[in-house]
């Protein structure tokens, strides 16, 4: 069984701070990490490998610096790593990213594709389902448990909703997006890190390598239907207000504030 895990290298958004004077993002010194949901995807693939045997590959689209994210995946126990990287892929939105990755995956061949539910920098949760659509395979998103069927031709997935969960049987080939509550990712191991650099390689795929599987019109900025018009930081936190009022007024103040912040 060939499992592919799609991962993304992201800035650790928990470490991002705003400059209180300028209101701009301080990105210096913010570490790059494997997107947390994707780490759980790697763990899901590796535990399937532990239980029933599988060849686990990890793939990402990104700049050359994403190499370290793939090495980390190798150090956790993945067997092969692919870095889809080319200047012409730059500026891709979720459409172009999913087209590109789908092309690479089609070329490489797969039985099961696992992605994290969403990335912490973009939070779109779109690339996984769109890869599945481009490849014409079924998907289950928001997976909280995955159990491989004995014949290894299907899985039962616990799919989480806001108000319910479902047990869903899905035949392979298929794509699953996983929640971080699915598992606790294992650490790399010392031997794994050494092996990731000394014994294993990260294979770089450029557009030339996958051109038979994805059209030029579908990649990079030119292949992206959406554009970022502008981005801005939220207005800096105003100084708090202190209220010494009757209880009923206090309740109304709290509720108004919760509404303003979309909590209600």
């Amino acid at each position, binding site marked *: 069984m060939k499992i592919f895990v799609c991962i993304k290298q992201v800035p650790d958004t928990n470490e*991002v701070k705003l400059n209180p004077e300028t209101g701009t993002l301080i990105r210096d010194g913010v570490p790059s990490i494997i997107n947390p949901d994707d780490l759980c995807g790697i763990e899901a693939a590796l535990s399937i490998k532990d239980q029933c045997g599988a060849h686990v590959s990890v793939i990402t689209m990104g700049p050359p610096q994403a190499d370290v994210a793939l090495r980390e995946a190798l150090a956790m126990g993945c067997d092969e790593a692919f870095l889809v990287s080319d200047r012409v892929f730059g500026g891709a939105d*979720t459409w172009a990213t999913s087209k590109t990755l789908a092309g690479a995956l089609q070329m490489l061949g797969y039985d099961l594709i696992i992605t994290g539910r969403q990335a912490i920098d973009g939070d779109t949760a779109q690339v996984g389902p769109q890869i599945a659509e481009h490849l014409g395979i*079924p998907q289950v998103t928001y997976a909280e448990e995955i159990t491989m069927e004995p014949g290894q031709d299907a899985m039962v997935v616990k799919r989480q909703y806001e108000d319910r969960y*479902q047990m869903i049987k899905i035949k392979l080939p298929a794509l699953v997006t996983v929640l971080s509550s699915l598992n606790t990712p294992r650490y790399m191991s010392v031997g794994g890190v050494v092996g990731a650099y000394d014994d294993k390689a990260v294979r770089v795929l450029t557009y030339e390598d996958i051109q038979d599987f994805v059209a030029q019109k579908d990649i990079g900025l030119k292949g992206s239907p*959406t554009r970022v018009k502008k981005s801005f930081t939220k207005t800096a936190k105003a100084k708090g207000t202190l209220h*010494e009022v009757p209880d009923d007024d206090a309740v109304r103040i709290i509720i108004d504030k919760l509404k303003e912040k979309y909590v209600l």
Partner: protein
Amino acid sequence: MGKDILVFCEQRDGVLQKVSLELIGKGRELADNQGGGLVALLLGSGIAGLAQTLINHGADHVIYVDDAILADYMTEPYTKAAAAVIKDTNPDIVLIGATSIGRDLAPRIAARIETGLTADCTSLVIDEETGEFWMTRPAFGGNIMATIICPEHRPQMATVRPGVMVALDEKPRTGEINKFHVKFDVADANVEILQTVMATKKTKDITEAKVLVSGGRGVGKSENFAPLKELADLLGGQISASRASVDAGYAEKDRQVGQTGKTVRPDVYFACGISGAIQHVAGMEESELIIAINKNPEAPIFEVADVGIVGDMHKILPKLVAQLRRGGL
């Protein structure tokens, strides 16, 4: 190119989701803005009866697909039906609620009909100057807002965060209701739902909660955590505690916030009866919205609070809970 706005109206078990009505409200505004119609798309089995509700909330036209295969949400049949209706009606804009169903369905539809999609929007406007549809969403862990456009592909698609847009009041209106026929075949049911269990997901880990209701020494005793718990449950959050109340045995150690507990940054942090010692503040000051309730107007917690309430938590919290319940939540 059409000028219509199409809203996918999610229902579960024959009940319209709140976000659907919110999007109808927003869709009405957008449609009036650009002189188009507002089309509501309804998918399911035996759901025709919901159509008039959508009209009454502001839709001009309801298109529904009624088929047994659509009884429970499944990605492929829903994608197939929605894509067919969209192709047929040729709308300018498609809006879908960013629920766990909407976020499964929308990307699949966008990929199928070959257009762009913007996820989890919190603001949608048609820019007066350019006529562009500006879809604004938080990114980077909520640290920045990004405005996205989709200049050349139609329809322009967005999923919208529940609770952001405002539904219009229901009033008797007339509109067109049409059944749309989609031909399904057996292969469309490409997954099998073995079991459905109604249950809300509980996050135990306080660092993952979006809302934290935290109690300090001022709580007084373990039983007094009850209204905090109620408030947390109502808001889909968790209770947490200061070191003082953990040490006093009011709360478990794994709920402790602070330098020697956990560092949290939820969307909302309620500090109830917490004085705001440095060791506590260090663990929560990055929270998006801090609401503090304390009897002592000099309490240091008010220095970091966005909303400070000088008062007795034992009186205010039950009132707040009661008010929220009345709000129909």
